């Protein structure tokens, strides 16, 4: 997976200098959390649902060998060609292979984070194919040549004006107003309808794979996934091994959590289950269907201390509630997976070397864990990744040394008191008339954006000791 995550700090600073984008993100951060809270409250005992799904997922992941075998058997019996891909490149090549065998020219795609992860579109386009994203948000960023900024709403960083300009430029419909969102959606409907009808191949993802009957589940509000799954003659489902659930009812439990956490709805408009190719007396549907099961590091995660991360259902709630994500924006993360979940997943799917900035993009505020429907202990996983950075020498030496020294000093109270007493006394003398210090040696990280409130003349422990001594006399 290609990432530019180690430029997070610079990319975030840039993103903070665009007032309009900042305002858009602030609105997301203010609007989406109450929507989720409301949906959770309307459900009833939402915590019981979270705990139930967590139990199911843990069982499914601990026994993934069993369920993978079961799913594969059922899916093959249903008439699918089932493929395995160790890496993103392998998945891309499998798709390319199928595409070439069918001499395909046009591809209609439903939203698939897996194909974002593997960079499939670029590979297909290099091979001369026309790939059209049909999820409206994905279509918008595809036209704009941008990457997604959010795992659920990839174009939420764009204003209606920007989208209007984009459509006026890219669609040849002559002079027109496109005055509001309905008008733009109407235009997208017109444009994309043609692509659905003309596509040689449909590519979709899966929100869940059901082991007991080999069906894959796909949820959308737009219905674009269903159009991709029903109209073109060939269907490819790109998914990953961790999506497998034992039974249909487990998929239903997950559905209850997913939609409420994502959009605040009780359910998506279209929740579809596809088993395979056209049956003998079917009037429609693809004649050939493929399922590609991607690993790309997930089996490693499964065997590691970070296996809880595989419980993620890609709802995006952690993003919406993370003040760092809201401030910095999704693009700053330099990965298809931003926000808290992305800060855990990106180093695990690419490498900690390439993404060591991300686990540090965190104040440990804990809001993500509060709302994660899958009960993933994100702050703990992020801290454990920071621990790994320390033990692997990936964190900046200056910080590591400074904090180790501080921790050592703290175990030597006499020396600690003496040094801190000196520092505090100096700071007090420098700053007491003004109330604060604008510059401090070795603290430019703090003072670049803040003053430091002037301390008192002595530390508490010094003053308390003096009072005790005075009282004893």
């Amino acid at each position, binding site marked *: 997976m290609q990432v530019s995550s180690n430029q997070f700090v610079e990319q975030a600073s840039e993103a903070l200098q665009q007032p309009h984008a900042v305002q858009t993100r602030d609105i997301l951060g203010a609007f989406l959390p109450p929507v989720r809270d409301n949906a959770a409250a309307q459900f009833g005992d939402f915590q019981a649902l979270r705990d139930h799904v967590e139990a199911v997922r843990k069982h499914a992941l601990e026994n993934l060998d069993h369920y993978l075998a079961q799913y594969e058997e059922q899916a093959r019996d249903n008439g699918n060609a089932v493929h395995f891909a160790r890496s993103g490149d392998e998945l891309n090549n499998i798709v390319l292979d199928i595409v070439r065998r069918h001499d395909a020219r046009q591809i209609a795609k439903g939203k698939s984070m897996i194909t974002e992860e593997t960079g499939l579109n670029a590979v297909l386009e290099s091979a001369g194919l026309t790939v059209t994203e049909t999820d409206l948000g994905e279509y918008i960023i595809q036209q704009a040549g941008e990457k997604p900024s959010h795992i659920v709403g990839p174009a939420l960083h764009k204003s209606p004006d920007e989208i209007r300009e984009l459509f006026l430029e890219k669609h040849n419909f002559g002079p027109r107003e496109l005055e509001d969102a309905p008008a733009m959606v109407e235009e997208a409907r017109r444009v994309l309808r043609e692509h659905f009808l003309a596509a040689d191949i449909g590519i979709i993802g899966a929100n869940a794979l059901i082991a007991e009957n080999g069906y894959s589940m796909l949820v959308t509000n737009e219905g674009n996934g269903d159009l991709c799954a029903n109209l073109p003659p060939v269907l490819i489902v790109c998914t990953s091994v961790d999506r497998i659930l034992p039974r249909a009812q487990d998929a239903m439990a997950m559905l209850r959590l997913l939609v409420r956490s994502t959009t605040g709805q009780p359910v998506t408009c279209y929740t579809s289950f596809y088993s395979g190719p056209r049956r003998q007396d079917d009037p429609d549907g693809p004649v050939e269907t493929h399922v590609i099961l991607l690993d790309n590091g997930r089996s490693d995660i499964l065997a590691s201390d970070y296996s809880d991360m595989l419980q993620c259902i890609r709802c995006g709630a952690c993003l919406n509630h993370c003040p760092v994500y809201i401030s910095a924006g999704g693009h700053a993360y330099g990965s298809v997976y931003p926000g808290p979940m992305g800060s855990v997943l990106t180093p695990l799917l690419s490498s900690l070397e390439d993404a060591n900035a991300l686990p540090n993009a965190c104040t440990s*505020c804990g809001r993500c864990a509060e709302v994660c429907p899958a009960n993933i202990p994100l702050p703990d996983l992020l801290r454990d990744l920071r621990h790994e950075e320390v033990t692997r020498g990936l964190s900046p030496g200056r910080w*590591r040394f400074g904090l180790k020294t501080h921790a050592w000093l703290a175990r030597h109270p006499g020396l600690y008191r003496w040094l801190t007493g000196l520092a505090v006394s100096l700071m007090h003398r420098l700053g007491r008339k003004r109330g604060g210090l604008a510059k401090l040696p070795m603290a430019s990280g703090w003072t670049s954006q803040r*003053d430091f409130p002037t301390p008192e003349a002595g530390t508490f422990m010094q003053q308390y000791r003096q009072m005790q001594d005075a*009282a004893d006399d």
Partner: protein
Amino acid sequence: MTPNLEADSPQSPRYRVALFATCLADLFRPSVAFASIQLLEEAGCEVIVPEAQTCCGQPAYNTGDYEATIPLARSVVAMLEPFEYVVIPSGSCAGMIGTHYPRLLEGQWRQRAQDLAAKTYELTAFLDEVAGLKRDEPSNSGETVTYHDSCAGLRELNIRQQPRDLLQRLCDITVSEMDQTEVCCGFGGTFCAKMPDISAKMADDKLANASQTGAAVLAGGDLGCLLNLAGRARREGADIEIRHIAEILAGETTPALGKPQD
């Protein structure tokens, strides 16, 4: 304000409490520690300040240096475990000892950490829920106050209602609630120095929400948050006074954080 070290207690104290002042209060805001002692004594406690205290180890821990933190955590456990109660004027430090030490330490230390966790309290939680501190005459400074819920205290220790109840009961102050009280202020320990631009935005948002209430004072229970906000407020010229809740409850008159001291 000096605590009354000389007078005899009229009757034997209800609680023997060790005060863990926190490194931030020790170094940068002693008035918080003194105010805590005053409040605890008002609540009928005998307060001991263990001499060897320095820091709970959060800075190294949160940055992932578990190995550097463990020896310090053990020494803190050994220092505090003889006491009946441990009270700390910080949600993050109380959370460190109360929820993270038992996870970080292993073997016999884990049990000792769990035992210590069971008797460690954040200041407002202790005053409100254990000591049930009341006053015959609420002190009323007439100040309008808004309150920032520090993340660790809120999410690890459920500190939310206690400071508000104490302000009401002891000072006749009803908190003017700001928007997004529960959103992080941008301190996050080393985060604020590693990612200063993001941290500044979060602090600005918090200060803007606070000022929108029209309150004169922004209060909170964690000095990390308050130093961050006071420092940013001073840099940006924001008007609001920033104080630790212990200072307000104890009627501290020390100039607010970031204001000139002479």
